């Protein structure tokens, strides 16, 4: 037991043992805490989890936090801030929020009712608009939302559902009633984090969650996946998760979900619409897409239908919707129901559309577009929170999401009142909600903190709603904050729905039929192939650069007679020049070998340096998140070692480590990717880079004449020293060394081997031509292979090596043309001013 632990034990003299019952010391504000208000049977569960956590951390709760952080990091799902280079781990609190199954049953019924109200409302807004004509909802409530898409009016979703996924933010008020803060019909952000948080917590705590009867999340994700598939017209549909791309804040979440659900992660430029159907560009040509889970806003989804300047959408996507063969979750335009002002009309809409009262009430909301409501808001100014009806920037709120009336100074108050006078429909007033607290671990002990719960619903294949048993908990980092003001510093918590002793299951698991067994994932989007190819190339280049630096360092300290000293000097110069050619060291100045090595190992600003290459590697890995396993992901992120540039030994060790780690990474990736097309592109990238670097090395080191030192260096780079000695029993001579480096097909680091490796991959990849003729990359690779086979080592002069480089370059270009998205693909929009 550590010291902290024994101190804690000492306190048992004065109360409950925090090591075994850390919640025994918990003091929450009177009422309004979810734990202190729990019934005895649920309270026992809270205690059980708290002690379980304490014992997992050997009595130290901070210890659990570090296990958890490590698991979150390992899972690779980190919160990425737009534009940030580094990803920031999403802080996950160790203590989950526990809700009893019987209490959850009420919440779940309320959530499902809301989803059904919104579905009916969407069908009406995008249909005959009777709720509007009958005065249940002012037209401005629809047209005021930027998510209202007039173009979708009259366009029915193929399965009949506008909503398939839906999220709700809930708070528990001090009386223990749950209330809705907001609805999310566009993007259920957090659904991936909820899953990830559960995985991380379960890993960190062993069987703890299972022991208290926590409901599993799996069923919800099955409903989600099969639900989206159910609307597709083909029996084995191909479904894509449409992402705005890696700069989007929730990109890691999207990649994780795509992987978890078995959807293809696609960007707009991966897709194309032809004859009213949606296709993904793959290495095997265009492949039909039957369904999309979109994570981009309707306004950006189709530049021909909405904003023509959108760079992330798919031109013609709405035509594909009109055609009736494409299912999209959620249907474009669904976000119109998200407006804050909608809350003011929901009780009435519940009656009109479902015939009953609203089960889960909203935070009380007054829409200032109506005179009586506006007067109420102004009369109760100090007690109310003012916010934008449609979540956009409006006058008088100073850019804030919402302001409490009593917090405004006289000037701000005047500005808000004037804003409301000019455009009353832009404002809502809402009551202030006090929120319950939940026990959170702060500095190693439990403290009460306010929390918000984001719940998620998905429609199963039978059309019925399934609520995720749990959700994404947001716990405020500050005590006693008003719910409306919870902010960016929050931490997240898992939410566990715990079976009570006598609670029955409320929802039957959706009926799922087993999928047809399939082999090989089959679909490799061109863009993913491109990224895999470059992942291979950058990995190989990092490794080869490290090899050259290592050889340079070895040559730098070589003692010897004056003659061989000058040869060694030439070798050092040639190796240094090679690193300069590769952009790993600055050009121009005359530098000592050690300076060149230091640049290659540490100069982030040189795009051929090892840190820069590793940076590129990590960037590309980010684009392949849905395809990389956890181990590969970790290997890629473990690369940069600390280096002391004054110490040759330290630099050499770093090179060894980079060579070793990068080899391990390559190995892991090859293992993970199996013998799939994905692996072939990754491996072709390695082979192409290796072949190209080998030619460049030969060119730099053997221009005309080469000393034994030069040739030894070249042998070192291909790991060929031992083999050469066993084969030739003499010092290196030009022809045999070049033969090994370039012509010998059995030398795994040599050029000939790389060309055969590429040829082999190409012959296994799908063919587009139906006339039986070879495709361009095959033809070039075959020619190059034959050319190498026909060459004699004595013919390998400068011009020959140079023309081999050209051939390899042509092969690279042909592969890019045939398999990858065309480099000029970024679409240029044409908006012209014809106006006077």
């Amino acid at each position, binding site marked *: 037991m550590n010291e902290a632990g024994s101190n804690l034990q000492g306190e048992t003299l004065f109360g409950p043992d925090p090591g075994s019952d850390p919640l025994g010391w918990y003091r929450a504000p009177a009422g309004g805490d979810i734990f202190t208000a729990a019934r005895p049977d649920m309270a026992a569960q809270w205690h059980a989890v708290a002690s379980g956590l304490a014992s997992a951390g050997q009595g130290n709760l901070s210890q659990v936090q570090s296990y958890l952080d490590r698991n979150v990091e390992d899972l690779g799902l980190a919160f990425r801030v737009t534009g940030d280079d580094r990803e920031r781990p999403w802080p996950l609190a160790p203590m989950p929020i526990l809700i009893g199954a019987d209490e959850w049953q009420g919440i779940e019924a309320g959530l499902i009712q809301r989803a059904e109200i919104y579905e009916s409302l969407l069908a009406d807004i995008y249909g005959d608009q009777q709720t*509007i004509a009958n005065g249940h909802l*002012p*037209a*401005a409530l629809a047209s005021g939302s930027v998510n209202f898409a007039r173009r979708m009016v009259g366009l029915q979703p193929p399965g009949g559902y506008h909503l398939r996924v839906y999220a709700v933010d809930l708070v528990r008020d001090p009386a223990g009633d749950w209330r809705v803060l907001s609805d999310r019909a566009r993007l259920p952000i957090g659904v991936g984090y909820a899953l990830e948080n559960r995985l991380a917590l379960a890993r960190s705590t062993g069987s703890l969650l299972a022991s208290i009867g926590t409901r599993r999340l799996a069923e919800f994700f099955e409903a989600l996946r099969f639900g989206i598939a159910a609307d597709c017209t083909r029996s084995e549909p191909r479904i894509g998760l449409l992402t705005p791309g890696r700069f989007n804040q929730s990109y890691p979440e999207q990649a994780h979900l795509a992987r978890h659900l078995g959807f293809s992660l696609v960007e707009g430029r991966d897709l194309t619409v032809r004859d009213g159907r949606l296709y993904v560009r793959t290495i095997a040509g265009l492949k039909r897409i039957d369904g999309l889970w979109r994570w981009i806003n309707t306004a950006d989804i189709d530049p021909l239908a909405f904003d023509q300047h959108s760079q992330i959408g798919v031109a013609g996507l709405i035509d594909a919707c009109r055609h009736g063969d494409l299912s999209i979750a959620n249907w474009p335009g669904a976000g119109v129901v998200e407006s804050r002002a909608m809350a003011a009309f929901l009780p009435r809409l519940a009656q009109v559309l479902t015939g009953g009262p609203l089960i889960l009430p909203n935070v009380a909301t007054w829409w200032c577009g109506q005179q009586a409501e506006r007067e109420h808001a102004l009369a109760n100014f100090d007690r109310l929170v003012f916010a934008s009806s449609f979540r956009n920037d409006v006058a008088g709120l100073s850019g804030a999401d919402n302001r409490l009336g009593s917090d405004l100074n006289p000037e701000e108050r005047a500005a808000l009142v004037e804003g409301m006078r000019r*455009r*009353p429909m832009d404002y809502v007033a809402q009551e202030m909600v006090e929120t319950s607290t939940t026990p959170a671990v702060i500095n190693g002990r439990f403290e009460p903190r306010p929390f918000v719960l984001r719940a998620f619903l998905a429609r199963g294949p039978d059309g019925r709603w399934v609520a995720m048993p749990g959700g994404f908990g947001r716990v405020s980092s500050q005590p006693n904050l008003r719910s409306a003001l919870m902010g960016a510093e929050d931490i997240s918590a898992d939410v566990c729905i715990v079976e009570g002793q006598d609670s029955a299951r409320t929802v039957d698991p959706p009926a799922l039929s087993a999928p047809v067994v399939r082999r090989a994932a089959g679909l490799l989007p061109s863009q993913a192939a491109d990224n895999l190819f470059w992942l291979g190339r950058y990995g190989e280049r990092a490794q080869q650069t490290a090899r050259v630096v290592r050889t340079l360092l070895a040559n730098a300290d070589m003692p010897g007679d004056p003659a061989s000293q000058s040869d060694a000097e030439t070798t050092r110069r040639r190796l240094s020049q090679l690193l300069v050619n590769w952009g790993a060291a600055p050009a121009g100045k005359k530098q000592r070998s050690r300076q060149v090595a230091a640049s290659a190992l540490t100069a982030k600003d040189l795009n051929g340096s090892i840190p820069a290459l590793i940076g590129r590697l990590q960037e590309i890995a980010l684009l392949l998140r849905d395809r990389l396993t956890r181990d590969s992901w970790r290997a890629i992120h473990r690369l940069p070692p600390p280096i002391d540039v004054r110490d040759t030994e330290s630099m050499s060790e770093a090179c060894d480590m980079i060579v070793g780690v990068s080899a391990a990474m390559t190995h892991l990736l090859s293992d993970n990717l199996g013998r799939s097309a994905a692996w072939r592109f990754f491996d072709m990238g390695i082979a192409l880079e290796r072949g190209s670097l080998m030619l460049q090395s030969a060119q730099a080191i053997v221009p005309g004449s080469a000393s034994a030192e030069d040739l030894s260096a070249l042998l070192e780079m291909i790991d060929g020293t031992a083999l050469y000695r066993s084969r030739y029993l003499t010092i290196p001579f030009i022809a045999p060394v070049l033969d090994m480096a370039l012509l010998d097909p059995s030398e795994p680091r040599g050029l000939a081997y790389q060309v055969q490796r590429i040829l082999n991959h190409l012959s296994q990849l799908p063919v587009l031509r139906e006339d039986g003729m070879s495709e361009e990359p095959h033809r070039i690779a075959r020619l190059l292979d034959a050319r190498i086979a026909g060459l004699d080592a004595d013919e390998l002069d400068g011009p020959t090596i140079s023309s081999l480089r050209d051939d390899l370059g042509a092969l690279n270009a042909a592969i890019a043309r045939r398999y990858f998205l065309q480099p000029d693909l970024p*679409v240029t929009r044409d908006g*012209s001013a*014809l106006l*006077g």
Partner: protein
Amino acid sequence: MSETVTYRVKHTSTVSYAAEIAQARFNLRLRPYRWPGQVILDDSLTVDPTPALMTEADGPYLVNTTRLQFTQPLHELTVTSRFHVAITQPPPPQSPLTISQLREQAVLSRDLTVRSPAPYLFASRIAQLDPDIADWAAPMLQPDCNILDAAYALNHAVHEKIKYVSGSSNSRTSPADAFRAGRGVCQDQSHVMIAALRSHAIPAAYVSGYLNTLPPPGEEKLVGADAMHAWVAVWCGEGTGWVAFDPTNDRLADTDHVTIGMGRDFADVSPIDGVFIGNTIQKLKYAVDVRRVDEDETEEAGAQAPAPS
């Protein structure tokens, strides 16, 4: 008895690209829309080269959209729109409503369709609201002002505030930028007026169309007649409906104005937009000819389009 004028309109645009573009798809919004007081006698749209696919769609705002799809690479595109239209002088608009009464009607409207006020109450992609424009317009748009009086006053004020300077802006210029610069073309004058009205919860729409090219003898040519023109429709209450103001020429739109379409701003009625593959500079040439049929019986003989300005 109100006056009816018949026009023959011919509008030719040629877009040429420095390098070939591929897989081009365009939206053309050039065919006139049904409009109160405006009868379309015939219309035709010719496209050269002939597209692989040409489809017609209505909307989503008050606009006809022609979708073109090309499968062959394209160097140059020529679009010619020809139509005859008869325009009847609208009766002088009348509305008893104050701005605050009008606002109440618009905000609580039970109609979401495309001619109703609610769709034109809010900021749109180009017509973003701007606090400076809102404050500038506030004295003219007081709650107890009559809506028509206020609209006339604002129309005049925009005409004075934003000087018409040909070529001083582009299709993406925001109302805020035009307002600060104090100059622009018809599109900017319209966007500023729209932003001012909507800042005070008065529904306002963007109208695109043409002006009579040749003025009656002794009168000056209207500004904006050499190209497409734009003006503003203001919603003046349930009884009155939409009233069209032309801030560029400081007057109501009348029989000199041929309407093509109405939307929230330029983006909804833009004459041409689209996507294609290719990174290239484009050049645009156009010729607009709008003339009264009764004045020009020998139409084909002397018809000479004005040079692009």
